[in-house]
């Protein structure tokens, strides 16, 4: 019997292999380098004025980085080709050769200079503080925000500034994965200020009323293009193109078109053209950054925050799982014992949750319902994970309850136990033993899924690792540490479950 499938597989193996290879090639959307094409990576989620889909023609990109990429490509005699990469992955994507250059409002940092070939700065921005209109007279500088929550975009100079300000002034840095929600949370009152560059703040103020951009400059930084470290000649060619564009006014025209030209740019252009060395950022001490330490020294420095983030991960996972188990048991009990209406409603809930992505549920819970219920980030994360996992747990418990044999239930009934006692003393305990193994799997899955709550600004282990990796410019040590910490959390859970299963199976006679 076994030989037949094996023979059949051998016959179809070449076809199967071709299919898998083809599927992988199809999924691997990044175009390969070809002589006539200039691939540039950016994140359209960043939006205008950097890179965004044209609202009238969603397949067409527009923004000043799009025009700069086109300018460079044409000067190189190639066709520009866009590669869509998440903002915080652009460095790694360029390093592995997915595109020739990354352009998406990328900040000049010491780490980027050390790990990639960076172009000359082509735009100068200011880090500015945005506060609610009512607080404009109270919160003028970071020093005024002692004990307050200040949001910014993850992996940016602004985040480093906030971490330092956290130590100096006792404020709490809140990290976001996008540059839109910091401002909406500011207006909602979830945070008290936002530190981001003036381009992003000005753009947001045009659509989101209720906040004021303070005039003081917290720090000055620059946008650059990033090229793989081993492609310095290409970077040099691009630098020459950028300098020419500064000289002939084409870069100024692009910035004016996108309404971001200001008094700082002529000075920057003059310094670039004069060959004056330009610091990555001013207003922040870049000498004490991770660049000046080895990866292992950086790991030592980041370890306490990774351990703190692990505590958040394990506490969040345990609380969410506890709540998911309680809600899951109630749903399963309702589906097994409830009336038709209750069964219909509970089945609807389970299918709704299972049929939609957890990320969407988290967004709806935290941002979508914010106008009605303003949940704190941790509470929203806990509730989101718990309600999602409750649906899956309920299916495990329902099938476990239904797997307890009728004979066991009838024996309990003939002994005079009430239906409630049958459930709590006989059916429930037996179902729990059946459900234990899948529950353990779910808990380990939840431990890892908890990384999704970073979109709600909860600083858990994966998010902390991303920040670590961005700051050291590599995923090797941060990734290994992160994996080690996840294993340290999940292996004991699996061991505990195995020992419980063994104890329940072990002969006691």
């Amino acid at each position, binding site marked *: 019997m076994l030989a037949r499938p094996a023979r059949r597989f051998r016959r179809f193996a070449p076809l199967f292999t071709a299919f898998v290879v083809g599927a992988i090639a199809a999924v691997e959307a990044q175009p390969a380098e070809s002589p006539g094409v200039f691939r540039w990576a950016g994140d359209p989620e960043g939006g205008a004025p950097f890179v965004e889909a044209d609202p009238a023609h969603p397949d067409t990109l527009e923004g000043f980085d799009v025009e700069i990429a086109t300018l460079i490509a044409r000067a190189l005699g190639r066709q520009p080709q866009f590669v869509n990469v998440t903002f915080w992955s652009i460095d790694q994507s360029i390093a592995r050769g997915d595109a020739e250059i990354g352009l998406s409002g990328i900040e000049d940092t010491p780490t980027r200079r050390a790990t990639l070939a960076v172009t000359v700065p082509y735009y100068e921005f200011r880090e500015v503080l945005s506060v609610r209109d009512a607080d404009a007279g109270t919160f003028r500088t970071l020093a005024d925000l002692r004990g307050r929550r200040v949001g910014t975009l993850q992996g940016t100079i602004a985040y480093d500034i906030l971490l330092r300000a956290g130590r100096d002034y006792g404020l709490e840095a809140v990290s976001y994965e996008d540059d839109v929600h910091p401002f909406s949370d500011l207006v909602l009152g979830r945070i008290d200020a936002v530190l981001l560059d003036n381009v992003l703040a000005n753009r947001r103020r045009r659509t989101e009323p209720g906040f004021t951009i303070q005039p003081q400059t917290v720090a000055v930084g620059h946008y650059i293009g990033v090229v793989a470290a081993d492609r310095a000649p290409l970077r040099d060619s691009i630098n020459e193109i950028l300098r020419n564009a500064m000289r002939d006014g084409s870069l100024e025209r692009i910035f004016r078109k996108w309404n971001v030209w200001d008094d700082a740019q002529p000075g920057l252009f003059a310094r670039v053209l004069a060959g004056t060395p330009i610091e990555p950022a001013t207003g922040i001490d870049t000498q004490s950054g991770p660049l000046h330490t080895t990866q292992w020294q950086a790991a030592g420095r980041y370890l306490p925050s990774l351990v703190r983030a692990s505590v958040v991960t394990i506490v969040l996972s345990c609380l969410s799982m506890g709540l998911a188990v309680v809600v899951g048991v109630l749903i399963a009990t309702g589906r097994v014992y409830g009336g038709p209406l209750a069964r219909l409603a509970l089945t609807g809930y389970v299918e709704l949750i299972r049929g939609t992505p957890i990320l969407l549920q988290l967004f709806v819970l935290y941002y979508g319902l914010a106008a009605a219920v303003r949940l704190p980030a941790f509470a929203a994360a806990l509730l989101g994970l718990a309600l999602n996992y409750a649906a899956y747990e309920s299916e495990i418990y329902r099938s476990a309850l239904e797997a307890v044999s009728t004979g066991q239930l009838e024996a309990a009934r*003939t*002994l*005079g*136990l009430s239906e409630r*006692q049958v459930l709590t003393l*006989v059916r429930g305990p037996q179902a729990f033993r059946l459900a234990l193994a899948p529950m353990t799997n779910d808990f380990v899955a939840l431990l890892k899924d908890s990384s999704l709550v970073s979109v709600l600004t909860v600083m858990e282990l994966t998010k902390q690792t991303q920040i670590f990796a961005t700051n050291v410019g590599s995923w090797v040590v941060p990734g290994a540490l992160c994996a080690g910490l996840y294993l340290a959390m999940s292996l004991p859970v699996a061991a505990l479950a195995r020992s419980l299963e063994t104890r329940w199976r072990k002969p006691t006679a």
Partner: protein
Amino acid sequence: MAETDRMTHPVLRIADVRLDRGARTILTGAAVEVTSGELVALMGPSGSGKTTLLRAVAGLESFQAGRIEVDGVTLQGGSMATRATLAALRRKVGMVFQFHCLFEHLTAVQNVCLAPVHAHGLRPADAARRADELLTAFGVSHRAHALPRELSGGEAQRVAIARALAVDPPLLLMDEPTASLDAIRRGELGALLRELLAQGRTLLIATHDEDFARAFATRIVRMEDGAVL
């Protein structure tokens, strides 16, 4: 009630019970009376309705017509028994299933103590003492802390009998008690049932085992096609 009446009054009266499952009639007017102190063997071919009749007496099957009375508790055909009636019935009837149906997550002694403590409100210490007496009487006290899957068929059956008798019901039902026993174990079971009779207990057993019934039953009642002959 005088001692002689107690010895002769009917513990179980089954009158004209008809039980349908969909279009199929399983019991067609079954009628049996079992008097206190009797061991009645209900015999008949497979599908004759023996087990269904036991299940109806235990309140596990509702029936369309007729009446079942167990020591003053009445189940009326054609109507759902109330929760109170079922609760009263289950103080009168103990049942030992063909496959014992011991609770898999509990040890032998926990199986025996469960109903006395939770359904009858006995103190756990008193229930444990009673369980110990029963398990000792049935020769399985040394297996008190074993889980059901660690017991042999004979041991499991004795624990199941102890569990059913722990709340001292006037009537004990047994479904195919010899089905999984070898000749020696059958003999041991017979001896045990005789002891129960000697204690004044009343038993109704469904069995295929003619020799066993002839050897140990005080009376044999035969069934065929859902009717008592």
